[in-house]
């Protein structure tokens, strides 16, 4: 990851600052961490990270305004992720160092439960997507919901 202060050198220092509900994580190179004088002077808040926006957007589902989000650092509901979506790649790049989720678990397995997994498996088999079918079958087996030969 690149240093959030100079945007040049590799970040090797992580600083977390928690004040009330505000969580901030800064990734800095060694030189910037030293120059800026430790944790108290360098925390980059979510407010700063999203400072380019006008802050007038409001989530249509929960009514949280982007200004509120910037102030508290907390999303109001899952739809805020869509509503404020255009700012999130930049936000997550700064807060977490990456722009997307990685998991060994197929997201669908936890979102929709075994019923959907089974229908996905049937669909994968009928469309001859055997790689995906094998993955789904393993998942169902792991859940104890599918025999070895079942499809």
């Amino acid at each position, binding site marked *: 990851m690149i240093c959030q202060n100079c945007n040049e050198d590799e970040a090797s220092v*992580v600083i977390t600052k928690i004040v009330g509900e505000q969580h901030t994580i800064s990734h800095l190179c060694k030189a910037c961490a030293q120059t800026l004088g430790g944790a108290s002077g360098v925390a980059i808040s979510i407010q700063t990270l999203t400072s380019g926006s006008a802050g007038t957007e409001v989530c249509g589902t*929960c009514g949280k305004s982007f200004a509120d989000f910037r102030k*508290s650092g907390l999303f109001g*509901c*899952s739809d805020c992720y869509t509503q404020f979506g255009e700012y999130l790649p930049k936000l997550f790049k700064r807060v977490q160092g990456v722009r997307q*989720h990685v*998991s060994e678990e197929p997201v669908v397995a936890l*979102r929709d439960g075994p019923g959907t997994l089974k229908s996905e498996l049937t669909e994968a088999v009928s469309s001859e997507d055997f790689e995906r079918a094998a993955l789904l079958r393993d998942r169902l087996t792991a859940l104890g919901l599918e025999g070895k030969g079942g499809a």
Partner: protein
Amino acid sequence: MTFDDLATRNAAWLDGSGLRASLVISSRVRLARNLSQKPFTNRATDQDKQAIVTSVVDAASASRFGDLAYFDTSALNGLQRQLLVERHLISPALAKESGPHGVLVEETEGASVMVNEEDHLRIQVIQSGLQPVEAYETAHALERDLAGELDFAVSQEWGFLTACATNTGTGLRASTLIHLPGLALTKEMDGVVRGVAQLGFAVRGIYGEGTESSGNLYQISNQLTLGRSEQTLLDGLNRVVGQVVECEMNARETLLREAKGQIEDKVWRAYGILERARLLTSHELMNFSSAIRLGIDMEMLPGLETGTINDIMVNTQPSHLQHRAGQPLDACERDVLRASVVRERLAA
């Protein structure tokens, strides 16, 4: 399980049975999850929060973890809530929440689920010793069971959607509670904290975020939750903790080589005071019990076990003492009772 049952028995993770348990007291994993179609706790009305409590409790009772007992923390008094904080079953933040909230607790206190903290669900598993992967597997099994009944907020792009961006993705925080007196005595702790931070892990006090270290006990946990798989995060924690353990063992070797007499004296003085004292503050107890943990580890105190010190550490905290007394106690009364409990446990 009633509140009194919980308050008067010990959690399984305190028994000192896990891998390297004299040094790594516990491994804890927590998964932050929210229900889709419901506002997060910070935007939820009391009605929403009550519906969330009902859904989660119903889902848990339909799972393999059906014997989890639900404690309605919004109906508990301040002392009872604080006891759950001291037990690491709820966070200080949940103890201060308004509206319906609570915690589901397994009889052994290994698995628990906070409901309506910053996220709708905070699934937690604590185990004795260095076992973050095993703790994760249990947490994941509970999560999987709950997912059969509940619809978690998740997206392909961002993974599990949490209230705070610092938890988005896996929602996984894995930590170990580790005793590092050697590094403190050789004044190498600052260097270790810096090194661990450079690897993307945080070092915090005994109760997690925003708390100070006490008794040379530190929590080491992953900072980042997005863009890395659960396995990568757990492997990373195991590796980092392994390195810290190695540094601690080196520091202890140095101490034994260069100051064995002083260390033995420190351990036995601590034991002598705990065995005889009539007044003990929390701070004194944590410091002396750190010396005793070190003594047990270095085989200087035969017959004394890590489980006994863990038991003392938990059961002499302010709310535990007051629950035992059955009434509120001022600081001086607590110090008297604390000393008495310690004498009783050491004599057993």
